[in-house]
């Protein structure tokens, strides 16, 4: 078997395709690195400036007392840019990088979280092209390379008659197949490894990008996923090559399959899926919002009229907190509806290996929709923490009336600005693994099925 692998390897290494693919991948990876070095520092700078501003505002508010802290809220919360932006960034410009907190100073209404919509760039009238990130390089180019290395692996040897010669030696067929597979795998991995290492070398030598141990671990996982993805296309190439008599036909079939699954399937399936499942429309949301608003107002008015003077404060406080909580809940639900529709469409696109790869790379690079949802969860957890903090501080003051929502009901003592909880967005690799597990298994399943298919096809075929 090693003999066959070696022979395949030498064959491939000397061929034109090896040289061409190496040049192509190197060029793309260098572009990718240059782009990241230029853009990442700007992103990080923007994030840091925004966070500092937010923090200063929070400190200023804390100094004016507990009520303004409770009413105005923590300010805008920002999503931390991932250092692995260069691996997958396709969706990132579209997803909002923050969660707003609204409050109304005059109406003395309380703060609530407001989730911005996807920001569609209406000013871009230029051509819409895919970004050169690892998802593109692996998903499109590497898969194409894998097919080009395998489309004639069996069919051309059969055409030339060398396959018969090889099998005339007492070598079992599966050994030949595995040898060919390994040979192709190594010869596609070499240019990719080379290009990726050059990319990482450029990135790590640049002083502006800092990759920590966790980031390197993630890159390692992304490498493994890339290998798995390459295996999938190699297996597909071998399968078709074993079934089809002539290599020209095998190439046409493979390229059409590639175009269908990699280029068109993700968007076509997504469009199909999203047309079947409808989300909550904006006017529906507005309607529900209006309804809950009027209901609250009604109950509040009644209790306002019926209550005596000392209770008014309590009821007013309740009204303010209820309003904020109700609106925040509705906004959250609206976002969940929208995201759920996208998630359903994404689940269906998982039939396409390219879409699978994109989801996996996004999950491990810390970009994309899953990461955005993680960020939203972080924000919601922080919002709870923040509100609890206000309650705790208030409880610590014996002079306070302990009525949330009104100035008179809260502690009047100054608040230590240091003690106010600060928001910090974090990435959690364990969570990423959990969300990606299904997709990882699906990708492995595809590889195994295709490999088994290639084996069966090759064992049963006449030579």
């Amino acid at each position, binding site marked *: 078997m090693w003999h066959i692998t070696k022979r395949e390897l030498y064959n491939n290494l000397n061929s034109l395709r090896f040289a061409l693919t190496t040049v192509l991948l190197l060029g793309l990876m260098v572009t990718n690195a240059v782009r990241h070095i230029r853009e990442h520092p700007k992103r990080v700078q923007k994030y840091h400036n925004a966070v500092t501003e937010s923090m200063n505002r929070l400190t200023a508010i804390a100094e004016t007392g507990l009520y303004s802290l409770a009413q105005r809220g923590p300010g805008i919360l920002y999503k931390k840019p991932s250092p692995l932006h260069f691996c997958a960034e396709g969706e990132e410009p579209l997803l909002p990088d923050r969660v707003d907190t609204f409050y109304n100073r005059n109406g003395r209404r309380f703060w609530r979280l407001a989730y911005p919509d996807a920001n569609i760039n*209406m000013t871009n009238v230029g051509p819409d092209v895919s970004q050169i990130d690892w998802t593109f390089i692996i998903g499109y*180019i590497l898969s*194409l390379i894998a097919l080009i290395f395998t489309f004639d692996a069996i069919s051309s040897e059969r055409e030339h008659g060398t396959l018969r010669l090889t099998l005339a030696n007492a070598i079992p067929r599966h050994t030949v197949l595995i040898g060919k597979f390994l040979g192709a795998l190594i010869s596609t991995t070499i240019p990719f490894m080379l290009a990726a290492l050059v990319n990482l070398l450029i990135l790590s030598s640049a002083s502006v990008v800092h990759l920590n141990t966790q980031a390197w671990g993630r890159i390692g996982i992304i490498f493994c996923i890339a290998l798995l993805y390459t295996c999938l296309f190699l297996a597909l190439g071998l399968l078709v090559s074993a079934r089809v008599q002539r290599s020209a*036909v095998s190439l*046409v079939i493979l390229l059409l399959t590639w*175009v269908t699954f990699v280029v068109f399937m993700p968007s*076509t399936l997504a469009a199909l899926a999203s047309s079947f499942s409808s989300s909550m429309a*904006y*006017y529906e949301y507005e309607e529900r919002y209006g309804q809950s608003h009027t209901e609250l107002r009604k109950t509040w008015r009644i209790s306002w009229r019926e209550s005596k003077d000392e209770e008014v404060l309590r009821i007013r406080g309740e009204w303010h907190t209820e309003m904020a909580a109700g609106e925040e809940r509705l906004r959250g639900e609206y976002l969940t509806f929208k995201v759920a529709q996208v998630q359903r469409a994404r689940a269906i696109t998982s039939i396409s290996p390219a879409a699978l790869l994109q989801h996996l790379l996004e999950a491990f690079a810390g970009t994309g929709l899953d990461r955005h949802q993680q960020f939203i969860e972080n924000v919601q957890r922080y919002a709870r923490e923040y509100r609890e903090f206000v309650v705790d501080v208030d409880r610590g003051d014996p002079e306070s009336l302990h009525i949330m929502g009104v100035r008179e009901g809260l502690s009047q003592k100054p608040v230590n600005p240091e003690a106010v909880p600060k928001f910090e967005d974090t990435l959690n690799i364990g969570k990423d693994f959990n969300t990606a597990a299904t997709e990882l298994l699906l990708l492995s399943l595809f590889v195994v099925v295709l490999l088994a298919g290639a084996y069966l096809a090759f064992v049963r075929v006449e030579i």
Partner: protein
Amino acid sequence: MLLILIRRELLANLMTFRFLVAMVGTLLLVVVNTVVLIDDYERRLTSYNTATQQHSEEVSSASTYSSLEIHLDRSPNPLSIFNAGLDRRLGNSISFSHILVPTHWDTESHSADNPFLNLFSSVDLILIFQVILSLLALLFAHDAIAGEREAGTLRLTMANSVSRSVILLAKYISAMACLMLPVIMSLLLVLILFSISGSILLSGDDWLRIGGILLISIIYLSAFYLIGLLISVITRRAATALMLSMVIWSTLVLIYPSLSVFAVNRLWDTSSQLESAYREIEQIWEAFERDRMGFLRNDEIEGEDLNANIRYGGTVGTFHTSNPTTLMYSKVETRSIGIKPEAEPLMPHVKAYFQFTEPRRIRAAERTWQVRQKALDQVHVRKANMAKNLMRFSPAAMYDFATEAWAGTDFHGIEDFITAVQQYRQTIIDYFYDKAAFSSRQWFAKDQGKVDWSDLPQFSYHRADVSIGAKHASGDIACLLLINIVLFMMTFLIFLRQEV
């Protein structure tokens, strides 16, 4: 002789299994995507219809002249199924009033759909043709000469007294005939699906546009076939030709467009231009404000706040919008108020005030628009055009741009709509002048009933003529043709001088 060769080539191409596979694959993809695209178009159309209806109701609810704000919607272009272009991506709803001239950059989307769905890239029929047909052309061409040379049949053919030019021509004609077959068949299938769906109504103009798209598709196909043929003539072995073709294909179709946009984004920075434009706009409004305050100081009403003296309920909108990044700047002053009984003697002065300020305000708004338009076009359009020009080295991009222009979904097509809206705003202003609206009481007061909007001029917009689209596409088509001719000449010359 030419005919015999063509027949041989045709048969050799048509009878192959790879042709069958390619044909079936293309047709399947086209059919599935057309169904999806038609469905998408129908949804956009429904959303457009609801939005227009809602907005036309809003117009008649304005109770005074000054509070009139008109929202207009852009209908989806049925040919966006062929090339989506900017039709889906840009905003399709725009609003204006007498103090705001809308530009391209103030559009919004109907709020009916889920913006997160834009995470998925969209497909159109031209993308399918662009990717698959170029691939097929290269697959057919790579072994046309190199394959025959390897097999020795080329030498055999030339042993008969056939000139080399005839062989080349025969190969080109027959391959093009074969490749056109899937194009024409998929177009027919698309048209059949259109007629089944029933929601897509094509005008005579649209048929011409589809014809233009077919023509460009054929020229594009021919360009890629000739690239393949050139490679096939140059290389000794078919396998080498194939590798070269694949690399060139992936570079031209997949990689190069991304690279050129990346390069333009790197080189282009335009923040300073906006700053100077913003200062200019601020000056325009300062001058207006000086005039206004001068008038108020000299008239007979006490104090400088009109509302305090005359207002009796109703709504007042006096606010100031400014945004340095979109260059949005205006001082709005709209009223829909009741009048205090004791303020009745002041009415002539108030009318005089509006008669003085509003034409000036409109002039300021128009001058703002001129500055804005120029500055924003500098920033956004020039950048896009640079990226486009750089992309034009790839025939695939040229194909995309040319079909976009024919379909009317390019920037010019969308701009036509904006221009129509701007003209409509002008007719509304003229209508105000005709009715002497600025000096009328109904400009600000609603106490004498709502304005009668029944004779308000209606907005109508028709897409530009097909000849305009053809004109915008002509540069790209000429370029594609030039590429064709140059490639054919090169192939021919190299093939003539080559040893077989």
